[in-house]
């Protein structure tokens, strides 16, 4: 009897903990990402990162987006799975791209074969997942979809995916807000509007001598 009572107590306490955890997760996510200070921190970090990019090659959309995501993940300070996944994936991608480029330079035929194999493997996996998904309830299917959207959550259980989404969405909103503020400032502060003759002129008045 005492054993059962202790088990019940444990279950209720764990349930209480998880309920509190869900609430705490939501509150802390909101507080963390929606604060003004957080957005300013992110903006400054982003500007620093973008300036580093400027010193290098030409700006490409992908690199800007990757830099923005990387800074976002860094701002998260590793507290969530998606942020860690973004940071780790960059390292993996760099190594993978290096290897792939080396292989391409040496033997192009081999790489074609390997990609063909991996495609077949992906197809077969996909077919198997399709057959299984007919048995899965729609909720599971949508949870899998959601997991694929959030970086690093591709094969996580539903609970993890939901928690990650709760943290990821305010972070994305903050990212969008910070970037749009940055764009607005750059366009109103004399960003050059390039006319047809190609001569660059600032759009603001009085800031620069024409």
């Amino acid at each position, binding site marked *: 009897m005492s054993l059962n009572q202790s088990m019940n107590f444990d279950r209720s306490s764990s*349930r209480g903990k998880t309920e509190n955890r869900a609430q705490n*997760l939501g509150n802390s996510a909101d507080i963390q990402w929606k604060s003004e200070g957080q957005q300013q921190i992110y903006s400054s970090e982003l500007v620093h990162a973008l300036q580093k990019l400027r010193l290098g090659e030409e700006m490409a959309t992908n690199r*800007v987006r990757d830099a923005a995501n990387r800074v976002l993940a860094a701002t998260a300070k590793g507290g969530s799975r998606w942020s860690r996944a973004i940071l780790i994936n960059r390292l993996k991608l760099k190594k993978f791209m290096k290897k792939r480029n080396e292989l391409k330079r040496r033997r192009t035929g081999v790489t074609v074969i390997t990609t063909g194999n991996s495609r077949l493997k992906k197809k077969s996996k996909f077919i198997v997942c399709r057959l299984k998904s007919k048995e899965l309830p729609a909720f599971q299917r949508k949870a899998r979809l959601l997991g694929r*959207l959030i970086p690093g959550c591709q094969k996580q259980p539903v609970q993890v995916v939901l928690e990650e989404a*709760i943290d990821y969405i305010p972070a994305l909103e903050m990212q969008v807000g910070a970037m749009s503020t940055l764009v607005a400032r750059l366009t109103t502060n004399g960003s050059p509007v390039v006319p047809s003759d190609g001569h660059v002129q600032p759009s603001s008045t009085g800031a620069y001598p024409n």
Partner: protein
Amino acid sequence: MSSRRSRQSTSNGTSRITDQQIIDLVSKLDQLLPEMRSNRRSNKVPANKVLQETCNYIRDLHKEVEDLSERLSQLLSTVDAESPEAAIIRSLI
């Protein structure tokens, strides 16, 4: 590999994923989503709908980040020629 909604213990074994937890998380998520409708039927929004809205919303946010980064890259590449802009950018911080 738990492909069904797991009523078994998880891999770490400390807590079971109960439906109530999932419902709590889904309601939390629902609060984050932008509500277009005027009246929020907070009790009756099905979980499937919330997940679908979440997927759409995250996709929209990704698209917006993509567009913004494209604009930023264009702005920064055109601005690159002028050095006072760098000072302006720094002063914005």
